[in-house]
């Protein structure tokens, strides 16, 4: 074929990988921010929890300034809301309506979709941290700022673990089942999972269980980071274990259509 001929044929090429992924990240982030229920779970409920904790004396959060213990717990709750409950529900319904299949055969592709979803979750978490952090500072929160580094690591690991758990649910169960279960598990994490109330302040049997859950590990890890400015090793190991196991299971069981 001569160059003259090729130039008359319009190029049906994909946009560069980076552009495709960023476009999908923007689209997913925008969709989440426009969705009232998602905003309620991602921002309003954690903010209400923080206000409630700041203005009351129960439940007991243990030693230390109450607000300093409360804010990292609420940040952990925010991560769970977005990375677990939000992703499980939105992915389950995208799967039900064939969205995952359509995007899978678009130039974006399956791997591009996964990367974009992870980036969108991190974008929302950044927004949550800014809003909840500002609210906490307003209530007199005094974090160890050096703790931002371990907190960032914990948040990344927690996001990995919770997104993998979300995909495990969303890729195997019917959308209605995911909707019910993802909300139920969020409540269970909140009540018994060591997110807001540190595992050390829970009854003996429950405290060990909570410390081994990803929720308790993320809460404890963020508290150690912001209260002591330290990287807590056990929570990191617990989160990595959950993340690896959930990723292995999800990649084996995830069905792109239901």
């Amino acid at each position, binding site marked *: 074929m001569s160059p003259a001929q090729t130039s008359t044929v*319009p*190029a*049906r*090429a*994909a*946009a560069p*990988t980076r*552009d*495709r992924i960023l*476009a*999908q990240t923007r*689209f997913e982030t*925008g*969709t989440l921010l*426009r*969705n009232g229920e998602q905003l309620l779970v991602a921002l309003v409920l954690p903010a209400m929890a923080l206000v409630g904790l700041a203005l009351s004396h129960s439940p007991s959060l243990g030693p230390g300034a109450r607000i300093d213990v409360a804010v990292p717990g609420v940040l952990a709750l925010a991560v769970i809301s977005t990375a677990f409950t939000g992703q499980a529900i939105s992915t389950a*319904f*995208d799967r039900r*309506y*064939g*969205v995952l*299949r*359509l*995007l*899978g*055969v*678009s*130039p*974006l*592709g399956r791997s*591009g979709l996964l990367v974009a979803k992870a980036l969108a979750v991190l974008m929302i978490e950044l927004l949550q941290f800014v809003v909840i952090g500002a609210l906490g500072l307003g209530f007199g929160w005094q974090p160890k700022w050096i703790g931002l580094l371990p907190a960032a690591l914990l948040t990344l690991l927690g996001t990995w673990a919770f997104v993998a758990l979300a995909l495990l649910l969303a890729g195997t169960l019917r959308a209605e089942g995911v909707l019910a279960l993802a909300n139920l598990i969020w409540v269970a994490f909140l009540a018994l999972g060591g997110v807001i109330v540190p595992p050390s302040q829970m009854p003996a049997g429950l405290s060990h269980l909570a410390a081994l859950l990803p929720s308790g590990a993320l809460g404890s890890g963020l508290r150690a980071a912001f209260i002591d400015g330290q990287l807590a090793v056990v929570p990191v190991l617990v989160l990595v274990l959950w993340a690896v196991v959930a990723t292995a299971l999800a990649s084996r069981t995830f069905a*792109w*259509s239901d």
Partner: protein
Amino acid sequence: MRDLAKRFGATTALAGMTWAARRGQVTAVLGPNGAGKTTTIECAEGLQRPDSGEVRVLGTDPWQAGPDHRAAVGVMLQEGGLPNASTPVRLLRHLAAFHRSPADVDALVERLGIDAFSGTTVRRLSGGQKQRVALAAALIGRPEVAFLDEPTAGLDPHARLDAWDLLRQTRDTGCAVIVTTHSFEEAERLADHIVIVNRGRVATQGSIAELTGEHSLEKVYFSHTRESAR
């Protein structure tokens, strides 16, 4: 595609499916429910992997084909595949961003009458409105091959004529347009090549003139697919 076979558990979906579609033609795949139309199309889109046989689309194996291949292939799924929470125009602009040289979104939107409901979320659209958005989504990348699974199902007669015009125009750009349909009228009025499938294989195929001769397409269809009627 040559000699495609695919089983789902005890069900045989494809049992030696062989046909080809040409550029600059509309190929209609016609057949009863369960004849293997959707499975065939999904194998060509790379959504299913055949157990045996060979599919080539633009010379490429569609299973795990790269982004440039996917950019040249337009897909309209039977279930739509549109994200519920988005509005049509926002979605189409977004999908256009996956392509280096996409179609003109505004022109496509106007052409298919999508501007009349551009502010409504996909969730609240009627079946026919969703069909139009899904068709626009399939053509947004100015594809060289378009696989459209029942593209006009649920459209009112006016919208159907508009969709046919658009598909003819797409064909005239040199695109290979492949539609599955239950409608003889659609096959007769739109298709350059008709493939009648039954029980996972091709029952007969050809141009409308070759197939019908002195009988109607309806008659030819039933004579080739009748034994599967329950």
